[in-house]
């Protein structure tokens, strides 16, 4: 290679993890009653720290602290005051952005380019955005004086640990709720660093409590009688379990679950930007994105050309050390996830789809999967139906707009979709037909605090972000 980019590693000296972390309850780190677990860097398998596994009594303590904070402090704090705390959090996150980006990359395996340019700036932006709403809730369209639910139990996934935390905590605090949040089992560290941001911002104790642990901790939080509302982002299977667990109780929930998005390309699409959009749609965050454009629906007459261009473009992707600023594709988050990807890709090959993987070196330690695309895929293949949650693209063809709509909607999911065409009228017509919460036109995987996000069908219910994101955290006010 003529122009070989020398390694440009980000320094990890900007972040220091404690050797072990307790549970953040009532403004203090306290020891958990249960066991502990190790959390690792998925790119190297190095142990980064040890965190507590919260048991039922820890959940009790956290919920009690949140209840006390809600009743004594937070529900009595005017919106304009709550806004100040949120603005402070947003600013501190922005000031400490480098530290959080490095921490996120170390614990998640995502490239520093993405944590630096996407995750952390967006996390800060969500706090800024919801800070603006905190004193305007009476005018948000939820009745004259909407009220908070009380204590909110939140469970977030491992693919965007800090960003999902901000999506959950910012609207909850803006609306006057208090929070008990459980970060994912494999990626608790930025949430634990966030506890320090809360203290720096002077947030009253108990308003936000952070419990680490795995599935059972989340289940205990969801089932707890003191929790008024649940907010969950994660797999459809777990989401269904949550819906069952709270059925018949007074609890309300928003569930943001899996997806199998169609990224639909017409023959008049802006071809070079489309190729970029496809790459961003499925290889962003190693494809571990619930709204990833994992099904590429291509108009048949440009299939060969587009696939050829895509392969050339994939040849320039740089796979490897996530801490290198020039890395485009980092590590898969866990051994379990890598296994799931491997199994589904095997199923794709077994069912007769044609596999093409990027020919690139990958590190020996850690969890890695080469960017992969399948051609010759039809709707009946498992790789076209099941969420792979990895850097694997399935290419399907269509001939007419109606066929594209039918195939795009032919999935149990309905979180997102993309349309690529130069024809504006077709974009509007398609967007109207697609049963998906977000439809991107000539772009993909773009997030903004002002824009609502959420799914149809098995992709869940409720919306996060924008004005719509306030609704699930409020009980509608009525005129007295």
């Amino acid at each position, binding site marked *: *290679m*003529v*122009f*070989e*980019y*020398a*390694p*440009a590693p980000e320094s990890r000296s900007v972040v220091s993890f404690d050797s072990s972390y307790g549970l953040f309850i009532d403004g203090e780190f306290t020891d958990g009653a249960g066991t502990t677990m190790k959390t690792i860097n998925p790119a190297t398998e190095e142990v980064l720290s040890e965190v507590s596994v919260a048991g039922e009594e820890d959940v009790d303590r956290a919920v009690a602290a949140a209840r006390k904070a809600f009743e004594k402090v937070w529900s009595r704090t005017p919106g304009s005051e709550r806004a100040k705390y949120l603005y402070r959090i947003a600013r501190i996150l922005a000031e400490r952005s480098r530290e959080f980006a490095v921490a996120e990359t170390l614990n998640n395996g995502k490239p520093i*380019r993405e944590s630096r*340019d996407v995750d952390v700036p967006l996390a800060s932006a969500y706090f800024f955005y919801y800070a603006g709403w905190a004193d305007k809730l009476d005018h948000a369209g939820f009745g004259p004086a909407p009220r908070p639910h009380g204590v909110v139990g939140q469970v977030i996934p491992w693919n965007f640990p800090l960003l999902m935390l901000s999506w959950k905590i910012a609207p909850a605090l803006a609306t006057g709720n208090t929070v008990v949040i459980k970060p994912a089992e494999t990626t608790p560290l930025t949430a634990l660093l966030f506890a320090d941001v809360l203290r720096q911002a002077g947030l009253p104790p108990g308003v936000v409590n952070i419990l680490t642990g795995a599935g059972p901790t989340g289940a205990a939080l969801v089932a707890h009688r003191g929790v008024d509302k649940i907010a969950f982002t994660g797999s459809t299977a777990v989401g269904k379990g949550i819906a069952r667990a709270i059925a018949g109780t007074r609890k309300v929930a928003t569930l943001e679950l899996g997806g199998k998005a169609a990224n639909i390309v017409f023959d*008049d*699409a*802006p*071809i*070079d*930007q*489309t190729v*970029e*959009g496809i790459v961003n749609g499925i290889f962003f965050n190693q494809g571990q994105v619930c709204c990833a454009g994992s099904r590429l629906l291509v108009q048949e007459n440009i299939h060969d050309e587009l696939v050829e261009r895509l392969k050339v473009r994939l040849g*320039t992707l740089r796979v490897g050390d996530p801490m290198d*600023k*020039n890395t485009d594709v980092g590590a898969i988050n866990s051994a379990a996830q890598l296994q799931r990807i491997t199994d589904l890709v095997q199923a794709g090959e077994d069912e007769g789809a044609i596999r093409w993987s990027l020919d690139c070196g990958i590190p020996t330690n850690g969890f890695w999967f080469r960017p992969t695309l399948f051609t010759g895929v039809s709707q009946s293949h498992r790789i076209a139906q099941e969420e792979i949650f990895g850097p694997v693209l399935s290419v399907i063809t269509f001939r007419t707009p109606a066929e594209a709509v039918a195939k795009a909607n032919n999935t149990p999911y309905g979180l997102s979709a993309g349309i690529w065409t*130069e024809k504006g009228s077709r974009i509007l017509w398609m967007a109207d037909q697609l049963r998906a919460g977000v439809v991107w036109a*000539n*772009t993909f995987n773009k997030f903004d605090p002002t824009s609502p996000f959420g799914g149809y069908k098995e992709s869940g219910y409720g919306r996060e972000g924008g004005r719509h994101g306030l609704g699930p955290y409020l009980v509608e006010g009525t005129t007295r």
Partner: protein
Amino acid sequence: MTRTTAGAPPALRPWHRSAAEVAATAAGIVGTDSLTSANLGRYLHGLPGVDKVGADARAGMLSTRSIKTSAKAWALDAIISMIDLTTLEGADTPGKVRSLVAKARTPDPSDPGCPRPAAVCVYNDLVPVALEAVAGTGIHVAAVSTAFPSGRASRAVRLADTADAVSAGAHEIDMVIDRGAFLAGDYARVFEDIVAVREVCRSRPEPAHLKVILETGELVTYDNVRRASWLAMLAGADFIKTSTGKVNPAATLPVTVLMLEAVRDFAALTGVSVGVKPAGGIRGSKQAVHYLVAVNEVAGETWLDPELFRFGASSLLNDVLAQRRKLTTGAYTGPDYITID
């Protein structure tokens, strides 16, 4: 510095193509022998569109690449070897041109190993002065012809202008297209202009190398940039160049990325590799490095060669020299340690 010269065999280098070959290629691509404005327009407007938001985002991503240590050292030397060191002022004198050539001959007097720029770029009337000064160095002399920078003159005048430079011995001709004709949809006129200038370039045994300046700042839309790039390549341009440097905006990274996509696609279609030259406004090393990143990742490493990529610049060289010294000494020297001619 190592550089591959592999890639297209010499016979495919565009400046060796005859007029008949160029015409045959163009007719084959457009699908007709009668290259009228209507036929050319149908073809150019049938090219895939460009989404501005996406194109800007792609350029933005390319400029986040972090080029350090050995990669930076390679890039700085490559940049120098790709520079067309330029002086295009009404006040240019023979003395000024000789100084410019002296700078090109010895960019860094303290380091004989420093590479030389590819060419010096001057106004037509100063070609003889520049040619005399570059003798024996391998540095090319490029002349801006065809009523540079506006191009607002009759074809006869523009051809005579070109003939002046070609007969004086200029190695490379930087011509401007008639942006007015392009914007009016008179594609055949632009096409024929380029073909005619090209014929003048070929009027001697060793043809002058033709760079076609699109003046992308005046074409405004990215769709126009793509169409103009293809029109120039169809007409046999050896290089497509963004700007004269006299109009704002001059070269931008998104526009250069679009042009790199165009030459990549043209090469895939015809086997002919056309060069790209961003010009105007590229002053910093870091900025120039990001252009090289774009070349590397968009058109591919074949284009990382002065035969296929150039920078039109006047002040870029000194910033690169300062960065180059910083890499060897570990510290920045002051501006007085770099010569200013």
